[in-house]
């Protein structure tokens, strides 16, 4: 490949506030069309916007988490254009004074760390949706304004990425951070985390960027990769043929994995930005920034490092456990009650994750086996009340019923048998009933030992203390 790709990303994250950015309507997804509307978000004459304070706090959080400086005097501007899903004929956004600027994120690709610059983060309102509804006899377009006026943060990166993998790594990192901050539900399919990619090519070794295309409508990490890869191919072909790439907006088509020009459908824009006279400046004094900083959760990077350094977890475990804030919280809560970091890690990554996966990818926050219950189970195991094997059986029962482990162990009579006399009787019985295998063992075929263990465990219905069984079997067979 004789071209170097240059990628910059613009991400729109929908904030999980209770209400819209400029009115009190709900931001819930999936309601009846136009049911979550009022004069303000419908753009009715005479209605006026009032800024949701939570949006500002969320924007500050996002800025702090991405190492941005926070702009202390913010102004909202109107971006003027006509479209049926834009009720006022302008979008309230920020233009020359965005709330966050000059940040960065570090990503890791192929074991190498790379810093990606963040140009700006600004607050704005979303548009509604222009859809083709499946209504008999209606061939027109239909407008649903439930989404209109929903708060967005637009996060714009520097053109610092040099491969689709770097773009994916940046996006995943950003996605993880906004989820950690609890400011975005991260749902790509519902459009809560949308990405536009600016892609250009330049000859390898060059420092002068080529003409870029802006790719829109990409709503999964997989598609981002596809769209960028397609775009690299397309632009390389043009350049190879001695042609020129045109600066334009291109729509990604997930069905074909290709992008197509939107040229001709949009005339050259002149958005006529100017300060919105209906809103007043947002002044953010240092104290406010510090108050928000105090609420900043531990971010995945710091958490992972702490798990390794303080809890002694392997890198792999740490990485998996911090993948979501909820999973990490579950883990930490359990470790607080049962301070054996690696054992808990094994269980969370093992049984807990397996059960949730099998249960339709249920969320960790809904796990019927709560951290206190899991800790109780692990304590029973540690005390020797039940064996590790029985513990897994008990876990499954806990998951199904939500009952406490002690109760299940008691109800089902799963207490581990550590009574030497009882186990000795079972061992004797097994040896008596299997003379041929005893002969084999004594003849040197030591692998038969496992067979005896299995038989004794079966006779005890799994409750015999495995250590005791081993000890007694060895003693009897060697005598």
């Amino acid at each position, binding site marked *: 490949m004789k071209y170097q790709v240059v990628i910059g990303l613009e991400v729109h994250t929908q904030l999980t506030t209770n209400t819209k950015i400029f009115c*009190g309507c*709900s931001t819930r997804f999936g309601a*009846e069309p136009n049911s979550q*509307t009022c*004069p303000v978000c419908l753009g009715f004459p005479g209605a006026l916007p009032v800024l949701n304070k*939570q949006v500002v706090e969320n924007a500050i959080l996002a800025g702090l988490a991405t190492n941005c400086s926070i702009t202390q005097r913010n102004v909202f501007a109107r971006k003027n254009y006509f479209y*049926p899903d834009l009720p006022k004929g302008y979008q309230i956004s920020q233009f020359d004074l965005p709330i966050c600027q000059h940040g960065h994120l570090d990503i890791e690709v192929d074991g190498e760390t790379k810093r990606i610059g963040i140009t700006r983060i600004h607050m704005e309102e979303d548009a509604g949706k222009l859809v083709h*509804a499946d209504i008999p006899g209606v061939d027109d377009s239909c407008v*649903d304004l439930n989404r209109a006026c929903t708060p967005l943060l637009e996060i714009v990166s520097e053109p610092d990425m040099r491969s689709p993998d770097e773009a994916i790594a940046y996006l995943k990192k950003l996605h993880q951070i906004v989820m950690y901050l609890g400011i975005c539900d991260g749902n790509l399919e519902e459009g809560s985390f949308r990405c536009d990619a600016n892609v250009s090519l330049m000859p390898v070794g060059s420092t002068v960027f080529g003409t870029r295309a802006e790719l829109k409508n990409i709503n999964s990490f997989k598609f981002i990769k596809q769209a960028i890869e397609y775009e690299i191919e397309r632009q390389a072909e043009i350049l190879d043929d001695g042609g020129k790439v045109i600066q334009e907006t291109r729509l990604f088509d997930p069905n074909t994995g290709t992008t197509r020009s939107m040229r001709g459908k949009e005339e050259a824009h002149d958005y006529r930005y100017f300060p919105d006279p209906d809103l007043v400046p*947002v002044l953010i004094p240092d104290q406010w920034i510090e108050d928000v900083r105090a609420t900043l959760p531990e971010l995945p990077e710091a958490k992972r490092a702490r798990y390794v350094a303080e809890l002694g977890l392997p890198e792999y475990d740490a990485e998996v456990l911090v993948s979501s804030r909820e999973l990490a919280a579950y883990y930490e809560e359990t470790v607080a009650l049962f301070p054996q970091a690696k054992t808990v890690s094994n269980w969370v990554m093992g049984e807990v994750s397996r059960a949730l996966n099998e249960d339709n990818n249920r969320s960790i926050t809904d796990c019927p086996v709560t951290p206190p219950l899991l800790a109780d189970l692990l304590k029973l195991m540690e005390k020797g009340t039940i064996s590790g094997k029985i513990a897994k059986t008990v876990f499954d029962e806990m998951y199904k019923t939500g009952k406490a482990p002690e109760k299940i162990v008691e109800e089902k009579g799963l207490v581990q048998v550590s009574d030497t006399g009882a186990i000795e009787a079972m061992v004797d019985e097994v040896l008596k009933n299997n003379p041929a295998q005893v002969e084999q063992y004594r003849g040197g075929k030591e692998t038969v030992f496992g067979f005896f263990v299995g038989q004794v465990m079966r006779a005890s219905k799994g409750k015999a203390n495995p250590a005791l069984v081993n000890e007694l079997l060895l003693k009897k067979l060697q005598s």
Partner: protein
Amino acid sequence: MKITRSEVEHVARLARLELTDSELDTFTGQMDGILAYVEKLNALDTEGIVPTSHAVPMENAFRPDQPAESIGVEAALANAPLRAESFFRVPKVIE
């Protein structure tokens, strides 16, 4: 001339106003006159002057993140020129 007829046409497109030929002529003349009049502002040196958006100093007007009642689908659509079920209905974008 401060503004040409073709600039006026461009502005009309931006403003989504379909103007007749005679309106275009009239507006070109009138806008030209008005723009010539506002030229007088250039007589003032405004270097270093802070632009005023609001005459009365104001800042930080917020709303708490608390839900208010929506007006309901029927009230939202009651004035719609054309609707389909719970949607506003509009002509298709012609490419």
